[in-house]
């Protein structure tokens, strides 16, 4: 960068001692109040339960007592939580490769020298990122509704059977589609930007060696994109495990989504519909731990393969 010519004295960090801590105070205070404290409180609550004495009426009839690992045993043995976890696992296994695969394809095409309408396509594909999950789910929900859907209108006019996207098994794909629609553009932009950071000479020399566009994409561009692909995968993983808004919104249009369709929906129901904050807390802690284990595990796994020599 353009540094003025005032060299000669490098007294690094000669600021008054307390200054960095004062500057960091807002972040540390907010981080403590809204991250550390809630985490601690959730862990605390997960070890508690309510003891009801007598009929449970009147003051003092309900007291909070230590529950040990009871809530965890209940959560881990709960078929509803297990069912929702497996559903979200399957959802992630379909969604993440599909979404990142499409994002990668679009990014490579945008970077390819012979493709037209790139600017228009880039903006159009990025645009859904500006649409909140609730709104996106509403728009797609109406497009799925047989009475409103243009797809059903066309199929009906052609005399073909009309599928109902909101019934039984299809609703799973309906929700995957909303997530792909909302997420593909953002990931495409991240990947495209890292492609642009690569000096063009590499491709030119590869072309001189007789490599085709496809070979360049597979042999040079994708390996160079590995760090960005890993990062987008981790962020997608974290988002996937917390899926809540889309199924909740679609739920108002169909009855094929249960109130415990995803783990977070179950936490919400336990805490607010059933007033059982203790098992909700235990389930939250389990979800958070699984997220951490999966994202750290994935990072460790790939860092050994992708960054072999580099120290990261």
């Amino acid at each position, binding site marked *: 960068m353009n540094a003025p010519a005032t060299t000669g004295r490098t007294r690094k960090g000669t600021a008054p001692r307390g200054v960095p801590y004062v500057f960091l105070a807002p972040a540390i205070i907010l981080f403590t109040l809204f991250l550390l404290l809630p985490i601690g409180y959730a862990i605390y609550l997960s070890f508690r339960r309510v003891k009801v004495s007598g009929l449970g009426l009147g003051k003092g009839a309900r007291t909070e007592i230590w529950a040990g690992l009871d809530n965890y045993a209940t959560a881990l043995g709960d078929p509803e939580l297990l069912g929702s976890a497996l559903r979200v696992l399957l959802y992630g296994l379909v969604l993440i490769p599909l979404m990142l695969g499409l994002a990668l394809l679009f990014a490579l095409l945008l970077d390819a020298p012979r493709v037209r309408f790139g600017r228009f396509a880039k903006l159009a594909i990025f645009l859904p990122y500006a649409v909140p999950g609730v709104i996106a789910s509403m728009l797609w929900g109406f497009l799925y509704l047989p009475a409103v859907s*243009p797809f059903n209108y066309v199929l009906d006019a052609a005399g073909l059977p009309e599928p109902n996207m909101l019934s039984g098994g299809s609703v799973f794909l309906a929700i995957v589609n909303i997530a792909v629609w909302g997420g593909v553009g953002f990931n495409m932009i991240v990947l495209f930007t890292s492609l642009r950071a690569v000096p063009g000479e590499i491709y030119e020399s590869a072309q001189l060696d007789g490599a085709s566009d496809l070979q360049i994409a597979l042999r040079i561009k994708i390996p160079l994109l590995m760090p960005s692909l890993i990062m987008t995968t981790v962020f997608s993983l974290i988002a996937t495990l917390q899926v809540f808004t889309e199924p909740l919104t679609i739920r108002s249009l169909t009855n094929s989504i249960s109130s415990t369709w995803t783990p977070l929906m179950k936490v919400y129901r336990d805490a607010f519909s059933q007033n059982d*904050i203790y098992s909700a807390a235990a389930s939250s802690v389990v979800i958070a731990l699984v997220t951490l284990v999966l994202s750290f595990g994935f990072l460790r796994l790939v860092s050994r393969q992708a960054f072999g020599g580099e120290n990261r």
Partner: protein
Amino acid sequence: MTLLQERKTTIPVRPGARHRPSWLGTAILLVGAIYCLLPIAWVVAAATKNGSDLFTTFTFAPGTGFAENLGDLSANGGGIYWQWLANTAIYAGVGGALSALVSGISGYTLAKYRFAGRSAIFNVLLAGVLVPGITLAVPQYLLLAKVGLTDTYWSVLLPQIISPYGIYLARIYAAAAVPDTVVEAARTDGAGEFRIFARVALPMMVPGLVTVFLFQFVAIWNNFLLPFIMLSSDDKFPVTVGLFTLLNQGSTVPALYSLVIIGSLLSIIPLIVLFLTLQRHWRTDLISGAVKG
């Protein structure tokens, strides 16, 4: 990278090979673009239809009920829709700005000062990126309920000011954009530390902080669970929670569907405009890790 630099020979490539358009690639991109624009095109068409046309005419055929729908939306609940939009602007705008500011000063401090506990603080903050933010919403609610802050603007605003990811981005950006020599020079001239940050470093960090602001703005605008849990009175709802409650009532009163549709359209227009105008300010190279620190 060394291997790549060695091959730095710029010999012009056969001109014809570069300029023959690839129709397959173009077609794939256009299909992607149509897929992404389809629901937006639909909502524009559907917003112009009155309640009965919605279920009877072809979905992309425009109707004549736009003004009527707009009137109904404004009349619903005494114009509460406009309150929801204003609330969203407050939550996302003020929250995003405060978040960028806190991220900015924290990132600058972590990049430019050497002090005890620096890497420990950074690592703890960074670990916050991996903490599933939404699972925090329930304990955050319980804590804020204890101090009587639920169902206030603060309950939605305060938890979203702290952004571990924003601090991380600001630190990368400060390291790259604010030269040590400039900070040293200002210090030699006798400027106070806060003055150095506010007058010297902050202006240099503006492009990076615009990115942090936009990220947090979109994140808050998108965050449904937190306001959904925290708020109970509908005059404090952001537009997403408001429309969600309308949609839920719609399953018994289908006439409300028209309001949900035009409400959705009006709520995404400002964000799309913001996107198209600010897209050149997005430092996406920050997130893809391409900034050399």
